Each structure stands twice: as C-alpha cells, then as structure tokens.
C-alpha cells in the first residue's frame, strides 16, 4: 500500500470516529443487532448467496453468508424471495447541491450567475453546500442509492466533491469524507478551445506544484505571482503524490488520450467521466488503469465530440479490462442507476461488472472501498432489499438501509400521491 493511500484511509477512519460510526468496545454491547434471513444476497463482487443471512450490528455488517446462529436479542426479518444488494453510489451528480435546477437560489453546484466556462474553482467544496434535507435524496434512496459523491459542475475546474451517506435523520453527519475528488471538464468549454483548456489546466497544476513545494515561501511572498487563490492552490496541491483523484469530464477519443497523457505527466490519480467515445481508446484507458464513469445509454452523436458514441461503450470498456462506474449525470435521475445497469447488460456487459459499476467500483475509485461497496463483514451496512431483479423495471426496493438504519421510502412524491389517491377528499375551494 502506498503511503498516501494508507494516510487517506487513516483520515477516513478518523472521520468515521467523529461520526460515531466506529463505536468504542464498551458501547458495542448496546448496539442493536438486526438480521435479514432467507435472502438471495448479491455481495457486490459477483458472489451470489442463496438462502443467505445478513447480520448488522450498529452501523456495520457483522456477518454475511449461509444461515448461522442468530444472535440473541436480534431483530429478525425474513425476506424470503427477496434479493439484497449493496447500496448504489451516485457519482458525478450534484445530489445535495441542487433542489430546483432553474431556481438559482436553490443551486450550489455551480455559480448562480454565468461566468467564464473555463473558470477555475478548485477551492470550492461541495461539503459547504451539501443539503442533507434536499427532497432529491429520498427519491434517489428509494431507487437503492445509499451514498452520493456530491459533485459540483461546470467550469474548467469545478471544485471538490464530498462523499455523503443518504441518511434520513437530521441533524446527522451525512458527509463521511470531505474533498473526495477534484473535478474538471475539458471537452467543449464554450469559452475555451481545447488548447486553451489544457493550457490553463497545466498552468494551474504547475502553480499548485510550486505552491506545494513550499507553502511557507508562498506565504512569505517569495514565490512568483500565482494567479490562483490560496484555496485553489491548496486543493490543487492535494492532487499530487496519489492524493485526491482528479475526475475529468471528457468526451472525444482524442481528448481522452490527451487527458491520460496529462495525468501521467503529473502522476495524478485520474478518473475519466463522460467518456462517450471511450470504446475507441479502451485499450489505452485499460493500460493506464484509469476507471471511467459512463452513462451506458448514451449512444447518440449528441455533440461533435461524441460522434462515435455507441450503446456498447460500457460493455466494450469493461471487456477491455477497464473498471466501469455508472452515472446518469443528473441528480434527478439518480434513482435510475439500476436501469442503466440493465441497459448495459442488455448489450453485452457482464452482469457482474454491471453490479460492480453501481457500488464497488465507485467506492474503489473514490478511495472508500475500505468501508463501502460490498456486503462483507466490517463494511458499512448500506444496502437494499429488492422484490425482484433490481435491474428490471418492474422491481422495487422494499427496504433501504443506510449506515445500519432502515430508511423511510415515503418521499415527498409519495406524500403527494397519498394526498391525491382519493380525489373526493381533496378540498375544492368553495362548497358545491
């Protein structure tokens, strides 16, 4: 394990401590124990356990497998005929940063007034805007999403994302890790050509490297003038040495190769996002061991950068050995992650890889796999119970557990439905 990764996991553990996820041994005895029995369990890495049992103690999974002894005082739920999967992770959406997209007062994912499309906002962090009471979260959760990489968007560099668990209660500590990754966009910036975009990106990285070599010298004014703010430089400098991943939204095959080259030059931990033409350079992406975030239904030549978009993109990337993550790139559609998986399988992606693309791969790419992504002892207990194949359109989650707690599946939408289920009980203004 490289030192940096080790360090980042340590800091993650520290954050868990702060959020009481890891309890002291003295408290362990009082932790509630829940057991789900007689389930088909997809552990998240391809393993399928029939008639399986899942035991959760507090916020963690304590056992997964064939039926075994049930702890005394455990609350037991028989879910015969149901299927349990790890919770999905929504990436590359502004979940928690936007309520009503066209109402700028509710948007914290990008500037409320237009600014240059190649702006650099590395210092801006999603955690400062994350709204754990957004109604979008429950809608996503009802679709099996238990964690979100809440992600700012637009600009050349959009800012840093945060890993949040979609907890129901408030106040709580939904943000498990601040500054999960830094996010950038390179294809089709309206104000910047590709050469200008890359130039500004390199310039930012150079400045950050200079700054990171001696922040003290910078503070003493002994560094050359750097255009960026201290907050920007500080966040950017965390990209080096295997620190924060850099997520780059990129579409065109040729642009992907340029981004791979740039990341290699600075030894960055790169994640590619969008990647509509990824299949044209799948071998190169695989060789660079870079994970990709894709919407497997994007098959249209929607822009001149995506003329080679095709439906089998995810399947081909996966077959080439690339670790694939799914995203709808839309906070309002996070609940449809499973539909994306089904569509990928329909055109040839291995079902095992499609399942990994919803939980294990995002957890791994964003450095959270120690605690998330699998149903395994010691992992955070975030999972869903389904009444059928979760990739199918007619199935639904009957229970969604986030960090050990069963959540309500009644969203604001469900409350509206309940109110209007019987129209005769809806007020009509004046009598008659």
């Amino acid at each position, binding site marked *: 394990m490289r030192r940096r990764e080790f360090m980042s996991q340590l800091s993650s553990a520290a954050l868990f401590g702060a959020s009481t996820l890891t309890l002291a041994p003295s408290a362990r005895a009082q932790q509630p124990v829940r057991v789900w029995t007689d389930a088909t369990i997809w552990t998240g890495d391809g393993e399928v356990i*029939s008639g399986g049992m899942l035991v959760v103690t507090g916020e963690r999974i304590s056992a997964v497998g064939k039926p075994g002894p049930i702890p005394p005082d455990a609350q037991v739920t028989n879910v015969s005929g149901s299927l349990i999967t790890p919770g999905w992770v929504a990436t590359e959406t502004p979940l928690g940063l936007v309520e009503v997209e066209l109402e700028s007062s509710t948007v914290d994912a990008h500037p409320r007034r237009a600014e240059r499309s190649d702006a650099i906002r590395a210092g801006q962090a999603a955690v400062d805007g994350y709204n754990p009471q957004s109604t979008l979260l429950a809608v996503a959760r009802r679709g099996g999403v238990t964690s979100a990489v809440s992600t700012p968007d637009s600009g050349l560099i959009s800012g840093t994302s945060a890993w949040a668990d979609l907890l129901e209660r408030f106040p709580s500590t939904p943000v498990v890790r601040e500054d999960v990754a830094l996010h950038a966009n390179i294809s089709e910036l309206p104000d910047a050509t590709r050469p200008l975009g890359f130039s500004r990106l390199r310039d930012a990285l150079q400045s950050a490297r200079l700054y990171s070599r001696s922040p003290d010298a910078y503070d003493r004014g002994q560094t050359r003038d750097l255009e960026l703010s201290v907050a920007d430089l500080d966040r950017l400098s965390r990209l080096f040495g295997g620190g924060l991943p850099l997520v780059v939204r990129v579409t065109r095959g040729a642009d992907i190769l340029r981004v791979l080259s740039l990341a290699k030059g600075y030894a960055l931990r790169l994640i590619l996002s969008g990647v509509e033409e990824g299949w044209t350079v799948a071998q190169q992406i695989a060789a660079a061991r870079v994970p990709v975030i894709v919407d497997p239904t994007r098959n249209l030549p929607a822009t001149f950068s995506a003329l080679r978009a095709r439906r089998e993109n995810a399947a081909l990337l996966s077959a080439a050995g690339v670790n694939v993550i799914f995203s709808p790139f839309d906070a309002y559609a996070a609940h449809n992650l499973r539909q994306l998986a089904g569509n990928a399988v329909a055109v040839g992606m291995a079902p095992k890889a499609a399942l990994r693309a919803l939980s294990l791969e995002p957890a791994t790419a964003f450095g959270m796999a120690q605690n998330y992504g699998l149903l395994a002892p010691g992992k955070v207990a975030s999972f869903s119970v389904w009444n059928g194949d979760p990739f199918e359109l007619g199935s639904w989650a009957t229970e969604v557990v986030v960090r050990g707690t069963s959540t309500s599946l009644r969203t604001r939408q469900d409350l509206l439905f309940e109110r209007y289920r019987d129209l005769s009980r809806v007020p009509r203004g004046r009598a008659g």
Partner: protein
Amino acid sequence: MGAFCLLVAGVGLVGACAPPVAKSPDVAPPPPALPWLPSGDPAPAATSPGSPPAGASPAVALVGGTLMTGTGGEIADATVTFQDGRIVAVGPRADVAVPQGAQVIDVRGRFVTPGLIDAHSHMGVYPVPEAAAHADGNEATRPVTANVRAAESFWPQDPALSHALAAGVTTLLVLPGSANLIGGQGVTVKNRPGRSVEEMRFVGAPATLKMACGENPKRVYGERNSAPSTRMGNVAGYREAFRDAQEYGAKFRDWQARHVSWQRKRRAPREDEQPAPIMPDRDAGLETLLGALEGRVLLEIHCYRADEMLAMLALADEFGLSVRAFHHAVEAYKIRDVLAARGVAVATWADWWGFKLEAYDTVRENLALLSEAGVRGVLHSDSAALVQRLNQEAAKSYGAGVRAGIPIERGTALSWITSNAAWALGVEGQTGSLEPGKMADVVVWSGDPFSVYSRVDRVFIDGWDAYDREGAGRRPSDFELGQGAEGARREGERSPAPVVPAPASGAAPAATTASPPAAQPPAAQPPASQSPAAGSPAPSPAPAPPSPPAPVAPQAGGALP
C-alpha cells in the same frame, strides 16, 4: 379554379366552389370560397412526389409470437399478417391463415407489438449533434408564431431518427419548442428514411398546434423585458391571439356576405356597377388559429401544473376550443377527474421531475392514476435519448402503479406508447394497434417489451421492412457517413462479448424475463449452468439473462431479406 375547388371542398366554414355568377335568379348566389386550405397541408399523395409506396408492400406473416395489440389485448402463440401496407389478420396461430407466398417469419419466443408512437418529439428540428446551425425548433422572436410549421424546420438527416427506429418508434409528432405561447404547427411523420419531410409525412394526419404554458414563455420573453413575463401575461397572450383569429374569421365572413350581396346587385346591370368587394388581407398564423377554433387543428399544450391546465381549459371554454392533449402535465393526477370528463389526453414522462418548479410535484403513479380514472394516458419522450426507451419508461410507470396497488393491466401500459399516443395525434384510426385494416406498423421484440433486457429485432412501417437488427442493422443518416457511422452498424449487432450464459432453449415467452407485475416471484437465482471462473464467484447475478431471439426461419417459400 377546378383543382382549387377540390382542395377547398370539405372546409367546414362557408367554403364552397361555384362560378362567380349564378344562373338562376331564384337561388341566392353562393359566397366566394375562403382562400385558405385546411391547415396543415394534408398533402394528398397525388401532389406529393415522394409519397411512400405504401400500397404495395409484400405479404408478411409473423408467426408464433406473443402479440400485444396496443388496445389492451395479449395473445399467446399468435400470428399477424400484413400486406399492401395494412394489417390483414391478427389472432391465435390456429385461427389465422397465412397467405400463399407470404414471407413467414418465425417469432416464437418473441413479442410483437404495434409500432411505437412518440407524441412529443423535437427530432429533426433540434437534431443531433447539437449545432447552432440546426437549432430550428423555437421561432423565439415573438411569443405568438402560429404561422410557423415544424415541418419547415425538419432536417430528415437527423441521426437520432434511425436510433428511434431501432427502438421501435414508427410514428412521431414533431413539435416546435416551448419558448412561445403559440409555437406553431407540429408535423406528424412516419419514421422511415426520406429525403424531405414530405417523403416522411404521415399522410392524412390532422394538423396540430403547439402551445406552451408556464415558465418557459414567460422566462424567454421576461428576460428580454417584453411580454409575457408573468403567467397572467401568458394567458393574456393566448386570449389576444384567439380574439384576433375570431375577428379574422368574422372579417372574412363579412367579406363573403358583402360578396353575395354584390353578386345579387350584379344581376340587374346598372351603369354605376361597383367593383367586387376586396378580399381582406390574409394572415397565415390567424388562419391556423382559426383552424383550432373550428376544430380542424388539434391543440397540443405544454403545461405542467394542475391549476394552469384548468386555466387553459377555462380559456378553451371562452373560445369554444377543444384541447387534444396536455403535454408534460406532471400534475395531471391532481385533476384527473376533470381531464377524464373533458376527454383530454395527457402525455407525460415516467419520472422526469424537479428541474424546474413547475415540474416539482411529479408522482411516479401519474399515468397509472390517469388510466384508472379513464383519461387517455400517453408516455412521451421530448428527448432523442428517451425516445429510444419508450417501452422501458412505460414499464416503469406500470411498475409504479402496481407497487401502489392501482389496478392496471400490462396492455394499458402498452397503450400509453401506442393506441393512446395515436389518439393524441388524431391518427388512431390509422395506426397504434394491431388490428385488421390498420397501417402495418409492427415491432418484433426479442422478449417481453417491458423487460430492460429486451431488444427490438424487427420493425415494419407500412408493411415494409424498416429495421432488422440481425440483418442490415441501423441505417446511418447521411451526416454520419465517414465519421463513425461504422459504429452504427455495430450497434445492430449482438453483444460485443458473449458474457451472458445462454438460457435454456425454447424458453416460453413469459419466462424470458422478469415481468413487471408484483405477483411475479423474484427470479434471483443465478442460472445453474454458470460455472464459477477459476477462483472467482459465480459471474452473473442477473437472474434471467436476456434471451437471444429465436432463430428466424424462412417458411412457405418466403425468402428473408
């Protein structure tokens, strides 16, 4: 004049063709014909040089599949036959005769449905790739542009069209955008490749008029500090436009009356003979609006909120208008009693929501509730991406209804993207269901169309082979040639990697995939045939992998294309 008279025959108002001077002094002279055609240019085949060869399609029999008729029925082990552009017979295999010489396609294990219909599309007017040069969907230069027609923006080389075809979509209503209060006429097209919109036009489809409520028009014009900038400004704008149209009609009726009395006077020639009354100036937009007032033009209204839909119905009453369908209509469930009583269709999505405040109150059960209340529900796309998954979106809405305990049938869910959509377009007598006499617009699916794993295998439009996944595949548009269009062909092919284990052969259609009903037991067991790869767990968690289509076997001398 003769040809002109033929064209105006059928105009409901006072239109009639007659020689300018009547012979008999006892009969009142007829008024002059109104100069406008029925709006929307029905474009009779005789005047449309590129009109499709619908009359001559070969005899085809799809044998042994599960038929979903589009009007609610589902027939196992059925046969559908079609010829000369029309469906000939539909029914259980034992009851349907296969015509001699017909091309027989074995569709056992597969599903057959009507061609899908998208009641709200901007393909061709907002084509891909996104390009300033092709953004032709909103004439956003003034809020009322009833004079424009989507047909005259339509780019038939939009690559998205063939993708929609490969997803089973055979008929589209292409509408202007929603920037304007009154955005202009839509155009109904059959989704077969053509060199112009005229070659694709759905011959005989009624004219449609796009209107838009709510946030879009008031935002577009409000930001320019011009009217409308409020919802009350929106309604004032519709009202003024329809009043203008009423006055326009009155002006022409007055002209007709004056013309009649002028002719009467001419019978007694006098020295001071007056010239004929001059026809009023014409206005294409007002003629379209007049068409709406007279019921010749169907109103398709973009409207999200319940209260705004009711306001539009009040406006309709003010002018004697009839609303054909509300589009988007995410709050339709709140007023489904009124919509049912008024016979207004609702075209909406399965779960798009929240992106603007008027779309905040979506419920997933919208379509199920509407159907339960007797409203014609339609699932539309408004998107070149979503149009490729109309079946999946219908399946989601169906599943939401089942989950909520709303009594609803699978066939009803299919009607949202077939027969009900046809009604919203006014072409329900022509297409949207598998019934003898209807246009032979037919889709063959690899499995249950409501399964995420099913693919479109074959599409027929007017009886002609329009798409064959295992055959020629998707036909890329001219634009795509030489820039990745070879990928288009690959899309028609099977999986790039054969990772899905083959299911048991001869699987019954019902077993191909988990179908939406709640009663369906979860199929969670991985197929027993899966052998764990060296040291790794079973590779496939998918319970029921998509079944490859049954082999297509030529029979009865029918050569396959």
